[in-house]
């Protein structure tokens, strides 16, 4: 099984703290990996390095065998934890932008997802609620046939109904040639769709295994393991 992501001895230091402390991690093709941990554990830092928004202090990060750069940006579909679309846009402008810059963008799939999320192409981005924003961003991201999807807290801050719709969209979109990295602290809702889980605490990986193995070994679901691991 090929590794779509290879991380070796990755460290990210700031003058007053160590955000990521010498972590190593590989992600295979076709796997859905959950990076779990509370706020400040280093999840978002890791994601930003993978997507090219942050530089590592030391260590190696390869996506599809390449260092982070223009190529990796073209094969990584990133869902950030914020509203990143340009405020002047309507939904159709966002769709045009994605189509212009990403050759793997599937307009048909996007239309379908829009319908599923009950959004309309003519809506203005600055009038959308937080939940609608999240659903729109997810639609754009999932409509790409990317090699790696990186979803940063996809269901945080959304109402339960939207949450369900988002989870459904993620599951419906699964394809065994692509991999997915999902960061979350809402483990309960997400754990059934994860193949592997990586627990991140204070910038270090303290546990990394397949979800089912962990359930078998400990007779607990991942949410309970999470609570146990992070309650100290």
């Amino acid at each position, binding site marked *: 099984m090929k590794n779509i992501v290879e991380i070796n001895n990755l460290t990210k230091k700031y003058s007053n703290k160590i955000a990521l402390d010498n972590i190593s991690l590989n992600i295979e093709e076709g796997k859905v990996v959950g990076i779990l941990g509370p706020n400040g554990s280093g999840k978002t830092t890791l994601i930003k390095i993978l997507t090219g928004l942050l530089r590592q202090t030391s260590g190696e990060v390869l996506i599809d065998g390449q260092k982070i750069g223009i190529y990796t940006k073209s094969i990584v579909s990133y869902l950030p934890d914020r*509203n990143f679309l340009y405020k002047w846009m309507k939904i159709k402008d966002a769709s045009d932008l994605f189509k*212009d810059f990403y050759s793997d963008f599937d307009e048909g799939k996007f239309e379908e997802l829009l319908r599923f999320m009950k959004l309309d192409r003519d809506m203005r981005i600055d009038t959308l609620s937080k939940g609608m924003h999240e659903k729109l961003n997810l639609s754009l991201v999932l409509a790409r046939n990317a090699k790696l999807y990186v979803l940063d807290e996809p269901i945080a801050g959304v109402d339960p109904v939207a949450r369900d719709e988002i989870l459904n969209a993620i599951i419906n979109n699964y394809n065994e040639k692509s991999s997915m990295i999902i960061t979350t602290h809402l483990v309960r809702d997400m754990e059934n769709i994860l193949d592997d889980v990586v627990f991140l605490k204070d910038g270090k990986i303290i546990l990394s295994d397949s979800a089912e193995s962990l359930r078998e070994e400990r007779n607990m679901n991942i949410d309970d393991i999470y609570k146990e691991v992070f309650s100290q």
Partner: protein
Amino acid sequence: MFKYIKYEIKGTYKYILGVLALVLILTIALYSLVGNIITNPIARNMFVGLSMMILFGTALATFLYIVGSFRKELYEDRGYLTFTLPITGNQIVGAKLIVALFWILVILTSIAIYHFIAMLIYMTSFELSAFLKNIFTVEVMKRILVGIFMTILNMIQMLTIIYFSMALGRVTFKNKKIGGLWFIIFLILSWLISYGHLKVVELIPYYFDLNGFGVQNSDSMMYQMNMNPHGSFSFSLNIDSLITNIAGLIYDVIVTVGLFLGTSYLVEKKIDL
């Protein structure tokens, strides 16, 4: 890059259109009131002064808006989109630069046209044919073209210094964020560049005269450069000569290109959002 230019224009044109409309109205109001209605000389001056202030304010606000487009990428959420698109730093900075320059030129040209038309309409003492005859001579045209050229180059240099200063504020060097107000960095950088220009001009006093297309070296040349003689991209637009310091010109070009490439490099490889 042209794809990105498309979106850059789409995102800014409404504001620019608004500014153009505003300036048009102000210009017409100014000319019609001052031209014919307000006769009290004190009121006239006051009114002109006030309009100048408003125009200046609008110009400043617009300029800040235009460069603000680059700043937003570095400091607001939209950077998460721009800097994850598979485009190079050169393409991003190039697009921003081109569109900024484009809007500035559009606005300046529009203002010139407004004034021209307003003069035609409101200033009864204005003789169009005589005016045009005076303009369309080789000497005047040369100077106008050089003036435009100079303005554009100066604009480009200023924009690149601003962009570089903004980008520098978001770079992490040896694990420390450089930070700081981009404006301060801009002032420092501008001063350094001007100082460098001064030194270059002092050391290599060779001048190029567009009037006769010859290269000259003479101390008396320096006296002739009386219009911002040692500023960047400067030509002396005197009646009898049209000269610029060659080394200075080359220096300015190198600095501008260097800042552009520097900004692209920072933006593509060095920023920490």
